């Protein structure tokens, strides 16, 4: 089975849409000229998001002595970055939580992996001094959304894809391209284009398996690659594609990372992921 571009576009149309307010958040976070006030205002003037934020902050897990009663309270307590990331993690649940049987992912598996990759991306971006850790977080959160589109095609062709991996010693996404005509990274980038997400996010999704194939070296793409690979390595939200992927040594080298840095990333992300899961009220997948 070869997947055509028309198939992909049709399928993208049927995806659960990111809420408009989430797309606006992504666009403002991506704009270096935006201010924290602008970002907070997006939340403040959207009643549904404000209510959701207050619910998360007042969850049993937070166990606060005084209830959070306003967006300003939440920002003061958690910081703007955490508030935004918490909301974006919650807003991608409809898209990323359903089981993706083609990839052997149970309900919550893809979302768990995506949030872990987002947290790892933000951490790495800060570590290597990239100016936009919020953009890195967003790329991490959305990097594998192409799996939602390709899921049914992978389900139909899993045996051929697995055979291609075994016979040709290729990575899983390369076998997807050979058998289906597209990788889930390419398809995810197409979906991001249709949603008019900023170009750095589209590029981060498209090249997260092959950062050296990007038109020019890009710290955000390198970060997305290393963060995703580290979370895959740790088995976080892992599926039947297993660890049939490669770490790009050039990207690791460009970021100046060592084995100890990867271990530190793991020991940082695991407890942060558990915190987000508890705040949003989901169990481990």
């Amino acid at each position, binding site marked *: 089975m070869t997947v055509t571009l028309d198939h992909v576009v049709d399928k993208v149309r049927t995806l659960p849409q990111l809420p408009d307010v989430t797309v606006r958040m992504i666009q403002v976070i991506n704009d270096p000229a935006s201010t924290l006030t602008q970002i907070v205002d997006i939340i403040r003037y959207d009643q549904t998001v404000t209510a959701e934020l207050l619910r998360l902050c007042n969850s049993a897990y937070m166990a606060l002595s005084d209830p959070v009663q306003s967006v300003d309270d939440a920002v003061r307590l958690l910081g703007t970055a955490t508030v935004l990331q918490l909301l974006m993690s919650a807003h991608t649940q409809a898209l990323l939580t359903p089981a993706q049987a083609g990839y*052997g992912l149970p309900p919550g598996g893809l979302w768990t992996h995506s949030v872990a990759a987002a947290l790892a991306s933000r951490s790495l971006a800060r570590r290597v001094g990239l100016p936009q850790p919020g953009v890195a977080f967003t790329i991490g959160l959305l990097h594998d959304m192409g799996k939602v589109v390709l899921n049914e095609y992978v389900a139909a062709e899993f045996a051929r894809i697995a055979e291609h991996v075994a016979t040709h*010693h290729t*990575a899983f996404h390369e076998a997807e391209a050979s058998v289906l005509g597209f990788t889930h990274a390419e398809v995810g980038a197409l979906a991001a284009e249709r949603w008019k997400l900023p170009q750095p996010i589209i590029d981060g999704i498209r090249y997260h398996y092959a950062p050296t194939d990007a038109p020019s070296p890009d710290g955000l793409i390198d970060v997305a690659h290393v963060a995703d*690979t*580290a979370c*895959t*390595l*740790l*088995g*976080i*939200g*892992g*599926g*039947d*594609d*297993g*660890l*049939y*992927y*490669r*770490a*790009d*040594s050039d990207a*690791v080298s460009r970021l100046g*990372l*060592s*084995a*100890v*840095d*990867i*271990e*530190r990333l*793991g*020991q940082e992300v*695991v*407890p942060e992921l*558990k915190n987000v899961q508890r705040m949003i009220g989901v*169990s*481990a*997948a």
Partner: protein
Amino acid sequence: MNLLVDIADVVVSADPRHSLVTGPLGSCLAVAAWEPQARVGGMLHFALPDSSLDETRREVAPAMFCDSGLRALLAQMAERGAVCERLEVRVAGASRLLSDEPSFELGKRNYLALRKQLKLLGIPLCAEHVGDSIRRALRLSIGDGQVTLITRTGETRL
């Protein structure tokens, strides 16, 4: 009833209705320990080889690491009456990526750390299923001490 042994967790039970089960292991290792006389079982799902990486984390989340995680597993099993000399230990995990990028060879480092710690503790290894790039998980049934390897293609006794 299945009790999830999440990454960086240790779970111990003497309830024969319980099964302890991990999620996907990746480069992590699951250590399933069964004490046949006390009929106590425990499982550790550790992510990193050595707690010297972060002493603070070792205190709050000992099961993150091989060395402190094993100590936590053995201590919790001993509290339930398990005797270390009678433990039957089986392990699975330590998967690897396709590439040989050294900074990502965490599975290998985890496995070597585990063998070293088990040797130091004088605990023999009954069975293992490690390496490769496949998805795998592990389950320990407290009712009979049976350890089951779970992969995409099915379940096998380890």
